[in-house]
């Protein structure tokens, strides 16, 4: 491997879209192809290995084998990140520890809205520095509503306080976040109306903030088994209510994916897992290549 800073895949999306599963699967796929990889947990509940258990229908399964984890797992510890921040950036030295009670933290957060978000963000970007020796950092990020303030914190901070050590850190974070070669926001969505709407609005907000273009991944796509004229026969015949319902749902999903792709370009998809363990790790590997910009990949 050539030494250099790592790429960050920041996996966010609505609750229940399968963020934990996808980030774990991507980290695994990257590690298996020999990349020095870290998986960063930003939500305490996802850090347990239970997050690795594939759920049918909700998230695509990996190959299911219980091999030792080939990547580094990092839990983003807010307190630790803050301590690093106080000591390294603000150079407050040993007294920092004394300040770390919750009250002080509230005061800091209130003093400059966005500081606590920036502190957490810096905890993530620090991992991508060359000396960490990583090639890929996969972030199992907070849900949409919490990820946006996290990612936009450098911009918000700079509006409030354009000078000083914190501003310098914020600028360095910006330089990573706006560089498509360093930072790829991955928005995971289900092919459902509300999730798609929220995804499009997040894409737009990230773009407006100046963050590198986001990639949208659609999880839980139903297969299309019929041509439209065959569906007409089903409609007319009443031969299979189930098949007709299946077709209607798949068609609706297709409409929503079309809406997405019209706005954000090709969106790789992962199939709905009708049975557990159905999605091969090849799917994830191909998705990883796509997200890293190696090969374009068709949706279906």
């Amino acid at each position, binding site marked *: 491997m050539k030494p250099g800073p790592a790429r960050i895949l920041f996996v966010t999306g609505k609750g229940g879209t399968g963020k934990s599963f996808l980030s774990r699967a991507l980290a695994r796929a990257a590690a298996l192809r020999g990349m020095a990889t870290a998986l960063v947990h930003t939500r305490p509940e996802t850090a347990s290995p239970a997050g690795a258990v594939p*759920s049918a229908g909700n998230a695509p399964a990996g190959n299911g084998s219980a091999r030792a984890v080939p990547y580094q797992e990092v839990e983003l510890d807010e307190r630790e990140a803050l301590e690093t921040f106080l000591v390294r950036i603000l150079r407050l030295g040993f007294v920092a520890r004394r*300040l770390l009670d919750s009250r002080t933290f509230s005061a800091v957060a209130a003093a400059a809205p966005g500081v606590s978000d920036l502190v957490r963000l810096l905890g993530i970007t620090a991992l991508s520095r060359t000396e960490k020796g990583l090639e890929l950092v996969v972030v199992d990020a907070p849900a949409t509503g919490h990820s946006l303030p996290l990612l936009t914190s450098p911009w918000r901070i700079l509006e409030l306080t354009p000078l000083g050590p914190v501003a310098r850190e914020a600028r360095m974070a910006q330089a990573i976040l706006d560089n498509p070669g360093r930072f790829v926001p991955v928005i995971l969505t289900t092919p459902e109306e509300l999730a798609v709407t929220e995804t499009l609005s997040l894409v737009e907000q990230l773009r407006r903030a100046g963050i590198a273009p986001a990639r949208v991944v659609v999880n839980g796509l139903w297969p299309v088994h019929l041509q439209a004229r065959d569906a007409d026969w089903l409609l007319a015949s009443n031969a299979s209510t189930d098949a007709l319902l299946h077709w209607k749902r798949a068609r609706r999903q297709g409409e929503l994916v079309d809406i997405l792709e019209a706005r954000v370009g090709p969106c790789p998809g992962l199939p709905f897992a009708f049975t557990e363990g159905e999605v091969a790790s090849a799917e994830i590997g191909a998705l990883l290549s796509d997200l890293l910009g190696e090969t374009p990949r068709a949706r279906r």
Partner: protein
Amino acid sequence: MTQQRSPLAGVLAGKRLIVLVGEGGVGKTSTAAAIGYASARAGERVGVLTVDPAPRLGDALGIRDIDAAPRAVTLPADSEGALVAMRLDSKRTFDRMVERYAPSEQAARTLLQHPIYEAVSGSLGGSEHYMAFQRLYELVEAGEQDVLVVDTPPATNAAELLSAPARLTGLLDTGALSILAEPARILARAGGALARASMSVLLALVERITGDALQKSVGEFVRLFGDILSGLEDRAREIDALLRAPQTAFVLVARPRSQDIARAVRFHDALAEIGIEVAAIVVNRVTPAPPPDRMRPRSERLADAPPAVRGAATVMEREMDALRLIESKAMARLRAAFQGRKAPAIFALESLDVDVATLDDIGALADRLSARP
């Protein structure tokens, strides 16, 4: 397949305030609309307050835009009640709260135009949750409706949802912030040497983070906000009492997937821990039971079908069965979670063919909730 013992409408009879909780995208808004619709059809004056409806559902209710005015929803001709749909505008609710509790009009204006106010009112963690309850309180106070159904912002855990008022007032707690407001005075009053030392470190810290100008600006903001703080704290207590009142019912909405069910059960337990009882769990978008045509052999039904259809229909029927299996496992997991302890009413709400997009769809869901033929 999953036959509820009593319709949800029965469980919620006599309740005046119905609070829907659950993760994003589980269908809280459509369920809230259907509960409101059923109740209005049965003769109540109902208000449905929603946070973030899917676009077509928002259109159906006439409240697609964030600042949409309350809108009367057209009910079937034989309905005796009325239904009003409302959309939460967090920012305006926050503004109204400031106006109400500020000591003077001038103070309210200064606060509303303060640069930090915008940052805080827009991005403060949990402010949307807090505002949902705040708006609810205003509506209860106004007393124009018999029944209020509120669809809360998505929350993955109960703490995120219910500690919002406490967190807001806690963050603005005079203890932490008075230092920023009037550093010199507080510093002078600080008794021991240790206290003085930590205060000066804190001040140094704040100065390094924010720069002098911002610190002054923060000071002004904190002083202004301090004036309305006791009003906010009273309100937070009143909201808490309202949520625990006997006429209030919590309805937890979840999807029929094992992992979602596990999270919903944790949500339920966390609510129980702080003394809030969930009246019902609605498992939303359950796939309908196999249709009657499945009783006849496929070979017979598809005898005249084009070959492509015959093969495809077989696969599609199998996939629908696989989906039903996934869902029935989730339902079993839900029931097992409440074995041997008090369970909320569990209600499987069958999905429509497609998204809930029209008033007819809401009516159809309302039929399922009230088990009308």
